[in-house]
């Protein structure tokens, strides 16, 4: 893919003995929404932070807009952040409670020297309107808003520098279900209007299905399956993906449900990472880790069973 906005390869992160993320790679095109799903402990949030180099990768290449973020100096990286923003799970903790909404939304423009103070104030008004908050919100503080409203503020803040990529780490999982759809629709709408690429992290399969063009399924720090949403939801190829999809409420259950918990990333099983919980594991899985292989154009699966 030549017009890829973000191209990640061999991305790994170990915290001492804990291998949180191992050899993750994917590509996001301009304006595309790419989803990462997985249980808690699958390394999806760490992956989000590695992509933005909020966590230093142990290994790997993060090619964004043609340069490798992993090799940028601290200051060059800081400047590059203008083009990549993040929305966090906790819409209260991620906003400085001592700053007004206007200060919060203007801050990204200020630190990247965009416009003068008059222009920035005008732009704050635009952004508030775009995320559906009243002009009067400007001089209020974050604690005066509900969770959904705070997430709108966080979205306005992320949009302020007109980035090309937004990484959203579980942006609605802290919100009431009734508010989730509003925030998701807003994100989708803004993404289309601004031509943003979105890296969307969630444990919620329905949310990912709603939002994403392509998805990657993570398990224990690795991507076990990656491909177009339609293909993965219609015909999951990895036993883990299949189990995950079937565990969603309202879906017909064909295979056995998943048993047990995700193993510790400090004590990885040999062979395939999923073998300890796989209903279809056989000999080879216990000693040989499956390599990701293409089962269709742009659909890759890391499973020995996918070979036939």
């Amino acid at each position, binding site marked *: 893919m030549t017009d890829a906005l973000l191209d990640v390869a061999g991305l790994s992160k170990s915290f001492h003995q804990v291998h949180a993320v191992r050899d993750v790679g994917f590509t996001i095109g301009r304006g595309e929404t790419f989803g990462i799903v997985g249980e808690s402990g699958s390394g999806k949030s760490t992956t989000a932070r590695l992509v933005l180099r909020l966590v230093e990768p142990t290994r790997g290449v993060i090619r964004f807009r043609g340069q490798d973020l992993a090799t940028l100096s601290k200051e060059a990286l800081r400047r590059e*952040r203008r083009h990549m923003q993040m929305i*966090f799970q906790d819409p209260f903790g991620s906003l400085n409670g001592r700053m007004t909404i206007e200060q919060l939304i203007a*801050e990204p423009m200020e630190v990247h020297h965009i416009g003068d103070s008059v222009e920035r104030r005008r732009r704050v008004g635009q952004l508030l309107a775009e995320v559906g908050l009243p002009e009067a*919100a400007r001089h209020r503080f974050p604690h005066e808003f*509900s969770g*959904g409203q705070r997430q709108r503020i966080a979205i306005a803040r992320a949009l302020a520098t007109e980035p090309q990529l937004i990484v959203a780490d579980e942006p609605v999982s802290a919100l009431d279900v009734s508010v989730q759809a509003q925030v998701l629709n807003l994100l989708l709408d803004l993404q289309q209007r601004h031509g943003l690429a979105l890296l969307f992290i969630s444990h919620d399969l329905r949310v990912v299905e709603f939002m994403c063009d392509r998805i990657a399924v993570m398990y224990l720090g690795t991507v076990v399956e990656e491909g177009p949403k339609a293909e993965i939801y219609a015909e999951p190829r990895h036993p883990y993906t299949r189990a995950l999809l079937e565990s969603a409420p309202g879906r017909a259950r064909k295979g056995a449900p998943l048993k047990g918990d995700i193993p510790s990333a400090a004590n990885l099983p040999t062979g395939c990472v999923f073998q300890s919980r796989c209903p279809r594991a056989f000999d080879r899985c216990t000693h040989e880790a499956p390599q990701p292989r293409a089962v269709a154009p742009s659909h890759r699966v890391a499973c020995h069973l996918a070979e036939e």
Partner: protein
Amino acid sequence: MTMAATDAMLDTPPTPAGPWRRLLRNRTAVFAISVLAALAVLALAAPYLTNAQPLRISPGIRLKPPRPQNWFGTDHLGRDMFALVLFGGRTSLLVGLLVTLISMSVAITLGLVAGFYRRVDMVLMRLVDGLMAFPSIVLATAAAGYLGPSVTTVIVALSIVLIAPVLRVVRGQILVLRELPMIEAARAVGVPDRRILARYLLPAIMSPLLVQASFIFSAAVLGEAALSFVGLGVGARDVSWGSALAEARNYIQNAWWIVVFPGAALVLTILSLNLLGDALRDSLDPRLARR
């Protein structure tokens, strides 16, 4: 739907009873603030309140008890105790103020840096450990002995001694605060470190520091008295409550007034500062107050 909900929410009045209003509702705090304000005014207005020169020796009126000409009596050199207490207050409170300002600003700067940059922390905290291994009065005594007795010496010595405890408080707070999501969010936006320190972390530690400041102030006033008492204080050309007490110690048995007045001024100051510190802590953190 959201707009309507938002507008309704925005109509509600902002939160009542800020920390300052809570502080002024606290009677102890009001008492402490009044006492400190009164002492400060008396010290500042000293030249207008008495004609007596604090250092003028009048051998003819040695050890006179309180009387209309000398409200607080006279000391063993015939100096007017009222003037001595007022002018002594100038020195004592000035030392307290300057030591608080110097040690707090150094400690805040170093503490912010140490808490934020782990490599600096390693080196700095070992130095602080070394500094804290000495009892502070020994350290202050050594510094004062090396620099010679003067007001400047006292300020420098006490500032050095009082940096370490504040530094530890600041660093400890920063270590916790730097892990907050808002700091990661600020980094993700591209907020430079210096701005994170100034706009995010510094405001967040101000309230515990305000409490700390009142205790540092009282420790400084007391420290000055202690150094003066052992003869390493302000020297013979200045007077302070501590030096007045030091000179009075030989006459305690026959002239109570030369001990009681400077002593009372000292006790009142320290007591008020400590009460103010407690009240500040309660008003800034109401969760603690209810216990």
